[in-house]
């Protein structure tokens, strides 16, 4: 079952912009529509919608959650093989491969930009190593900074 949009939709287009799998279509100021074949049930549209007009796969209203408070991907740096698959899946370009810390450093991994990340979980579900899990990041801004330093 896929997510659906109810009549409460005002056609602002915010959900269409954030959908990681381009599953939402619709004209401005008219009811939007989710393609069930493409929907990956990530709820990002519902979490973005100001009118709470999105129902999840069980028919429940998806509550609005701010980007900073959503579940975010956490990378296991030891497992990550830096293959770039997650970064290719990410539509908001929130993932890049870390820079080497010294010349010849081979230990690079996927690095998440938590301010850009909308929390769709596509990276976690497509990681061949299972190195990405979705979890709560306590203080996103600080965590991002720490990541950049590490």
């Amino acid at each position, binding site marked *: 079952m896929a997510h659906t949009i109810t009549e409460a939709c005002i056609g602002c287009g915010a959900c269409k912009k954030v959908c990681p799998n381009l599953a939402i279509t619709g004209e401005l100021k008219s009811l939007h529509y989710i393609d069930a074949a493409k929907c990956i049930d990530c709820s990002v549209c519902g979490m973005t919608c100001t009118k709470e007009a999105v129902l999840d796969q069980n028919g429940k209203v998806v509550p609005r959650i701010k980007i900073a408070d959503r579940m975010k991907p956490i990378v296991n740096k030891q497992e990550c093989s830096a293959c770039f698959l997650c970064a290719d899946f990410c539509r908001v370009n929130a993932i890049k*491969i870390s820079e080497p810390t010294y010349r010849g450093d081979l230990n*690079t991994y996927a690095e998440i930009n938590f301010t850009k990340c909308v929390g769709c979980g596509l990276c976690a579900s497509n990681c061949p190593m*299972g190195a990405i899990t979705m979890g709560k990041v306590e203080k996103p801004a600080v965590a991002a900074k720490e990541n950049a330093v590490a």
Partner: protein
Amino acid sequence: MASKYKGYTGKMLDINLTTGKIGTYEISDRDRERFIGGRFLTTKILWDELAAGIDPLSPDNIMIVMTSPLTGTGAPSSSRFDISAKSPLTGAIGHSNSGGNFGMHLKRAGWDGIIIRGKSDHPVYIDIVDDKVQILDATKFWGLNTEEAQHAIGEKNAAKLVIGPAGENLVKYSIIACQDRAHGRSGMGAVMGSKNLKALVTRGTKKIELYDPEGFKKTIRKWIKMLKGHPATGDMAPKYGTSGFLISLSKHHALPTKNFSSGTYKDAIMLTGQTLAETRLVKNAGCMSCPIRCARVVNINGREVKGPEYEILCLLGSNLLINDMDAIIQWNYELDLLGIDSISVGTVMGFAAELQEKGLWNSEVVFGKKDNISQILRSIAYREGVGNDMAEGVRYMSEKYGGKEFAPQVKGMELAAYEPRGAVGHGLGYATANRGACHLDGGYMIYFEATGPATLDPYHYRSKPGFTILDQNLLAAISAGGNCLFTSWTFLPGILFKIPNSRIASWITTRVLTYSWITIDLLLGLPPSLLAIHLPMLPHPKALTQATGMKMHFGKFLQMGARGYTMEKLYNLREGFTAKDDTLPKRFTDEEQIPGNKKSKVPLGKMLPKYYSIRGWDQNGVPTAKTLKKLDLEDIRI
């Protein structure tokens, strides 16, 4: 008609640029079982769809973009996809494999491949988003270089295949670029240019279904860990890239120097991957989904750009007697922007320099002179002045200006950056490879003869036919399955890298390996059912089984390689190629590389008959009826 096998989307696009018609093309499940995907499946389609003897740059030729069952599944180094057509450079089968993100996106859009026929009357590009396929105008993009074109055409996050000015001007060895990766050999860029097609753009949102997703996940996790833990793929390749081998090739007299006239270069140390890593490397990079990450990133004028591979460091370096790595890095970047194959162009430049030296043609290329190289590379892409003849390749130049005996080409394709007289098995590979003198299609024997951890005796010719065939079949099958050929490096156990650097130890391993040819010859004669095993160092067949649902094991995998290779050979035979074309230039077969060392030339006449007989081909290089029956190719008749 969808396929009963998973891992495929079961649909293939068929686009005619002359009429603008967009349809689908049917592939039978029997062909999927026999040819699995990639270069083998495209050979079958070319066989079915093309008439013999057509002009490769005419609208009659077709260009096929083809993925493989493992493409885009998350298996290591599996972003590989194939582009095939009749090659304008050689007139033989042309295929080229690379690791950009296009194949993966194409499959996510729901298509296994695309066939492009005919010719548009104005520049166009093809845009594919899931089931929506459009042919759009590209007049304003015509003339852009590969980097500008990838920025300008289509949606930002889409995958793109583009040609540069060289492809537009039908340079016979022009590339098709996708991200930083290039479909280099066989001149596929010229075929695309001849169709007035500037780019292909795709973006997909569908999922690729697998037969046994859980088992597959386990297999590839183990596989990635193995690649990360192996000394070749987990340490050497990421640290030093492909050019890490350069110094050991020079030691083994296999580094092309001064247009392949010598095998050692005094300044080799200035061009090695180790020097590159210590002085200029910013970081390593890789193709999508690849844990090996052998690609280089370097800095040019404050911008991070793609660094040089081994081939260009050798062919524009030692082969032209130039030891300036910074200059080569700059040319490498320029060649990518222009859309020229850096291997072919390097060999063309070396040959042009020797023609100049011998007074046969005033080509303006001089050994050791670097200030006009940039300008000549540009003139090749735009076909100006001397560049016009050089754009046709070494075969054309040698026919026009002479020097056939030292023209480094086989079947019209320029030799890659390995000197065959320092590794005679590699020479046999060059002579027999279906697409021309290609190191990868030829079996990459150099890994066993010079660059690898334990070496075969490079001059022992009796052992080479069996090893070459095994390698050719294996590499071709890996490529058709959708993986990078570097995943085959784990075939030699990591322990071999730890052999003590003593004379006795290396003498013993060399003898043991060299005389194991008897086992290899026997192995190649065994029916696949006796090899129904999964080798831990070769997880490809197991991954294919779990992805598609076909019963695949080592024996069948090897047989598929033999079948595909024979199919490509049949295509070449239909185009009029004979055993006479399975040869090397006289310089390699008749002249000693090291004066006084009688072994230092390629004894091709002694190796070829054995090669043909192990393959089950007659002495004219034609597969016998019995072989065709054994390989399940009875329906193919020349």
